[in-house]
């Protein structure tokens, strides 16, 4: 265990320069974007130069850029990510309120995707070129080809508008239902803690459509990767030996083959997870999901610097964290691998 902790610690320290680079880069990028936030936020019939200057001063934009950067780094050091002009709230609060929504959605989507993709990938690998293989390929291609907002709107149209099976696609919990007391911010967990199974059901049924929409989109990389690495493993010597020794087919495939085939799947899973978290903005918009991605997009459109910078920092940190977890999972899946 100490080995793992030490390894994790080393990995974390070595990722600090990357995080710092991301910070500075985003900061500079936001400043070279055309569009002056002070002007955008100064409205009203007579908003003249004085009002614009005032907002600029309030946002700290009147100082030279290097000084702004130093002040920004100092703020980050003290845990202050600034204030969003669009929501009027401190960015840290906004992100803290919204991150659980995004995480809950992404976790569920990833779970659905894995539960579907791994068996499909194995099935396809067992009979390459068969009808099953082609069916899986078709499903994956469809999932990747159809943009998430199209599949999302389609699901809403059929399941909510035409059939009336799904609840209205508006946020995390039915607006007329009572919300469980907040503990973790994950509604499913909070409702379970409170023992409020009606709220749990309300939140879960609200979650199904967006999670499926996202799962559909990431089905392809996971299923294809499982298939490819299973194919490679299934032709290797130790599988032939196992079969020759008369081990059951189930044991050969699920224990020996799958475990060896999982490494690339875990790698791709880490990437898929990070991508989903940042790229699910369309799903969040379509389902009115109060997540971090749609928050960052709104801020970007109005040149609101602080939330965008906060969002990028958050995403970079999550990426580092996910990579760390993936590395640790490698060790579990294949003890021969040790990443220093």
């Amino acid at each position, binding site marked *: 265990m100490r080995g793992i902790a030490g390894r994790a610690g080393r990995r974390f320290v070595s990722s600090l320069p990357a995080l710092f680079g991301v910070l500075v880069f985003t900061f500079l990028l936001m400043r070279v974007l*055309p*569009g*002056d*936030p002070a*002007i*955008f*936020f*100064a*409205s*009203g*019939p*007579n*908003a*003249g*130069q004085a*009002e*614009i200057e*005032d*907002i600029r001063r*309030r946002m700290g934009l009147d100082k030279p850029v290097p000084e702004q950067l130093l002040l920004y780094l100092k703020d980050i050091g003290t845990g202050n990510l600034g204030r969003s*002009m*669009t*929501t*009027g*709230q401190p960015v840290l609060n*906004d992100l803290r*309120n919204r991150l659980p929504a995004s995480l809950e959605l992404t976790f569920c989507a990833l779970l659905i995707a894995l539960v579907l993709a791994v068996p499909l990938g194995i099935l396809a690998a067992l009979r390459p070129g068969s009808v099953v293989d082609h069916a899986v390929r078709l499903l994956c291609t469809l999932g990747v080809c159809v943009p998430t907002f199209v599949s999302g*709107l389609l699901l*809403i*149209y059929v399941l*909510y*508008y035409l059939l*009336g*099976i799904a*609840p*209205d*696609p*508006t*946020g995390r919990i*039915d*607006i*007329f*239902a*009572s919300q469980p007391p907040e503990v973790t911010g994950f509604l499913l967990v909070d409702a379970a803690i409170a023992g*409020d199974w*009606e*709220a749990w*059901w*309300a939140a879960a*049924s609200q979650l199904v459509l967006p999670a499926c929409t996202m799962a559909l989109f990431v089905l392809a990389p996971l299923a294809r990767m499982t298939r490819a690495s299973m194919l490679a493993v299934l032709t290797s010597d130790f599988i032939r030996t196992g079969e020759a020794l008369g081990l059951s087919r189930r044991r050969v495939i699920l224990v020996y083959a799958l475990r060896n085939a999982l490494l690339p799947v875990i790698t791709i899973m880490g990437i898929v997870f990070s991508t989903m978290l940042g790229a699910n903005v369309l799903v969040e*918009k*379509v*389902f*009115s999901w109060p997540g971090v991605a*749609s*928050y960052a997009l*709104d801020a970007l*459109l*109005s*040149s609101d610097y602080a939330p965008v910078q906060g969002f990028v920092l958050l995403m970079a940190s999550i990426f580092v964290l996910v990579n760390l977890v993936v590395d640790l999972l490698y060790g579990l899946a294949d003890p021969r691998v040790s990443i220093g």
Partner: protein
Amino acid sequence: MRIGRREILAGAAAMAVPGGPALAQSRAETLRQVTGNTVNTLDPTMPGSTREAFGISVNVYDRLVGFGRKQQGAGWVFDPDTIKGELAERVETRADGTTFTFHLRRDAKFHDGTPVTAEDVKWSFDRHVTARSLAAVQIQTGSWTKAEQFRVIDQHTFEAKVERPDRLALPNLCTLYCMIINSKVAKSHATADDPWAQAWLKDNAAGSGAYRVESFKPGEQVILRRNDDWKGGPLPFFRRIINQTIPEAATRANLIERGDADLSIDLQASDVPALAQRPRVKVVSTPQFNAFTMVAFNTRMAPFDNVKLRQAVAAALPYQDIFKAALFERGAALFGGDWRETPPTARFPQPMPMKTDLARARALMAEAGFPNGLDTTFSFNVGSAATSEPMAALVKESLARIGIRVEIQKLPDAQISTLVTEKKLPFLTETSIAWLPSTDYFFRNFFTGEQRWNYSSWNNAEITDLTAKARFERDPAEYEKLCKRMIAVLAEEVPLILLWQPNQDAVMTQAIDGYTYQYHRQVDYRDLRRA
């Protein structure tokens, strides 16, 4: 499955409100409005506050006075010429028009139960003119600039004074920025850096309005509960209001069609005709008579500093085609007016005498000194692409016929506002709105000065002079004469071309009644009831 879920939720809701009325009853008394944008603050005077935030504040705070409403066509619209009391039960205006005495309702209470006094009114107005906020810039258009203009006479009487009889002094006090704040509560949250409690009032309300804030999640939803002690008028019908942010317009339309939501005022114009055919849906379309969509020229920059060239463009545009293609004619046209030299009324905006006449346009191009034509760009913001994109295509096509080669430029909102403020765009389209639809106000804000709203950067000595006079003109006949002259100059000089006033399409379920188009273009929940 659907029925099961509803029943479960009914159970949950009943548990959440112990002893509350049956769910069916409370749903009927709840209004659910879905909107594409977000409510970002409870203090509408905060720089950057959204239009949706304005709508909430109208219902949560009272003002001293407000605008009445009148029937127009099939629906209701606000009436800028009728001023009714809100917290003030009556207003006395001195004969010279400089002093207003407000007699406050004696039974009016803030949400915390304390009475509304003239002290609170004074504190609120001091805040509106002193604090750095949107209020100060708005109400200075009614000559309200200093705290000394406001005076407490006694606990229930309040006096406000302007130096000269500004026509817009009283109308400005009707606007939502002039909300009356509970000064005791606000002061207890003020700090040395923030004497006007601006940080606290962003997330908290301290008003006396018809609704109190039950929960406020910026970017997600606001829930309001009726204030049963409200004395400012007849008690509103709805006990509970849910204002929910649903970014996707198609989803909002679905919710209304299925009856899960009651009202939306920001659906896509192209969806509205189809929705109006559905049996469960009702559409109230009102031309936004205090707004206008225009094509503006930069009158301080070559080539459009040339009057002849502007007139040539005005004669070349295919108005009716643009109106059809971009807006599906869902609005009131502001072109094709049948007058020359003197307009028929002093109202503004009104149809201007612009007509498509290519022969005249070509002649004007030659007179302007551009026999070989010219190159320019036409800009619009991404947010308005649904109407601006077809418009831009037609502008490009029609101007090519008189030798103007147009490049279309689509810009993000923040970027276009920067470029407009810096006066760098030669040629653009925008839609703008004035809260106080009086002619001199329009001209002052849109056709004089250096602010962003002067889209064409127009600087005309006669107009500046006329607006300065009209502002303080108390004789209606004289005022009318001044306004007609301003409109005539505008038609002659064409710093910008008026196109139309788009409709506001309020889409609601059949049972909702009483919707009123307001100056702030949001929903005043006090107007509404379920039939």
